[in-house]
């Protein structure tokens, strides 16, 4: 994206062109759809949650380089985390996007490359879409647990 640091641009483009963890899971624990009504970006997100841990993350959808690369980075960052760790990380990413927290590269992984998006208010929603979907999926799963048991 024009105006972003070159190194970061490369990481973003790499995730955009070669998205990690796309497709659907054979045995998803929870699946959610989210879209950004104003720009039309869409994501379908599936999680396999095993004993409170996100063992698998898969996403599909369409959208711009920011929303697509962000989904790819999110899938890498959250896979293997516990539900609570994942929710914490989503919140950290959200605060980074809103310029309210400094980015922690250790926790974010490649998603650190999206740090500069905070400067572009209209693109923040693109970057956040998949992360908010992840939060939604975890909370849906939890409420399902509750109602189910």
């Amino acid at each position, binding site marked *: 994206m024009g105006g972003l640091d070159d190194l970061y641009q490369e990481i973003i483009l790499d995730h955009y062109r070669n998205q990690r963890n796309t497709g659907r899971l054979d045995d998803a624990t929870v699946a959610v759809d989210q879209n950004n009504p104003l720009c039309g970006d869409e994501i379908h997100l599936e999680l396999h949650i095993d004993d409170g841990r996100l063992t698998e993350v898969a996403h599909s959808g369409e959208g711009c380089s920011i929303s697509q690369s962000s989904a790819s980075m999110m899938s890498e960052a959250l896979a293997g985390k516990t539900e609570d760790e994942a929710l914490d990380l989503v919140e950290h990413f959200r605060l980074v996007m809103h310029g309210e927290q400094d980015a922690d590269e250790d926790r974010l992984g490649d998603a650190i490359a999206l740090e500069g998006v905070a400067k572009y208010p*209209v693109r923040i929603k693109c970057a956040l879409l998949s992360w908010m979907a992840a939060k939604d999926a975890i909370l849906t799963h939890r409420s399902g647990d509750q109602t189910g048991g």
Partner: protein
Amino acid sequence: MSTAAPLDVAVVKRDFPVLGRSVHGRPLVYLDSAATSQKPASVLDAMDAYYRETNANVHRGVYEMAADATERFEAGRTAVARLVGAPREGTIFTKNATEAINLVAWAWGARNLSSGDEIVVTQMEHHSNIVPWQLVAEMTGARVRFAPVTPDGELDMDGLRALIGSATRMVAVVHVSNVLGTINPVPEVARMAREVGALCLADGSQSVPHMPVDFDELDVDFLAFTGHKMLGPTGIGVLVGRPAILDEMEPFLGGGEMISDVREDGSTWNDLPWKFEAGTPPIAEAVGLGAAVEYLEGFGMDAVRAHEREMARTLLDGLAEVPGLVVHGPTDPDRRGAAVSFSLPDVHPHDLAQHLDQDGVAVRAGHHCAKPLMRVLKVPATSRASAYLYNDARDVEVLVAALGRARSYFAT
């Protein structure tokens, strides 16, 4: 609470370019703020800067100018919400107070009212808080009932209580009367409505510009007001609603901005507040209204109210000097705003307004969009002088002197 510094009106006046003009060779004395307020230069400059620096359509643009425009527009909403202590998502921009009330009448009323239901308004409502309900009543079979006004121009609370019952679905009441100046006990009315399971709407067109108004304290479900009476531009009004109720409502106007998805077989709606803002919103107007709110906040609404209480007193005292003049509405400045209606025997309000105009004094003559109230007062029309933060005792002196001249002209 009122530790605010008193207004220095001489300084305030300088902020309002139009107040420097003259009319028929006399300095303008503007006493018609209840019809529309004048605008400080900061409001005009904010709108002008918006157009000269960054005009673009909002919400959908990726480029910098569009992002900047969206930010300035939404900052206007934030300011308005802050002023009345409302949640941002419950703060909807309309074109004026009238549309705000129609929004509720149509989006809530037309879909929820049916034969046997009753809407209670008062005899001191502005037409904008009567006609929408009459139109919706006519379409749904509901009925509009009018709570009485006491002879001294207050809301007859016993009469109102007697009207509110199990058939009542909505109680719509003006917070401050644009004719009588009366400040109505809205929280009490809202409580009466809630007791029977009805909703309550307050028309804050004459209160929000002039005194501290807090949406939660009013305790109503809806609050309507209008930009041009609160130092803002024409072309913008506000509906504040409880988000939980707005969420349940279907949209009113359909079109761009208010949708989530549009398909040939049906559509889904955007989040609040945008669900109720169809089409390109009043962008520059929201910017201007935001600047107006900031201007008012610079003094504090307590200080504005304190000044207007004094102006009400000064007006009432001055008018009392004019022989035969009758004031309609409360005479206690604590119970009223600074819009004062009066009748002068032998001088028709139109003749009076024109005479005063010759002396540079702008007052309003007519039914003030409150014909039912005119019938209660048994007058065809009244004259009304209404003050704002830029008026002072000197303005009242000029008015009273001009009234004397008009009186002697017609009385001879």
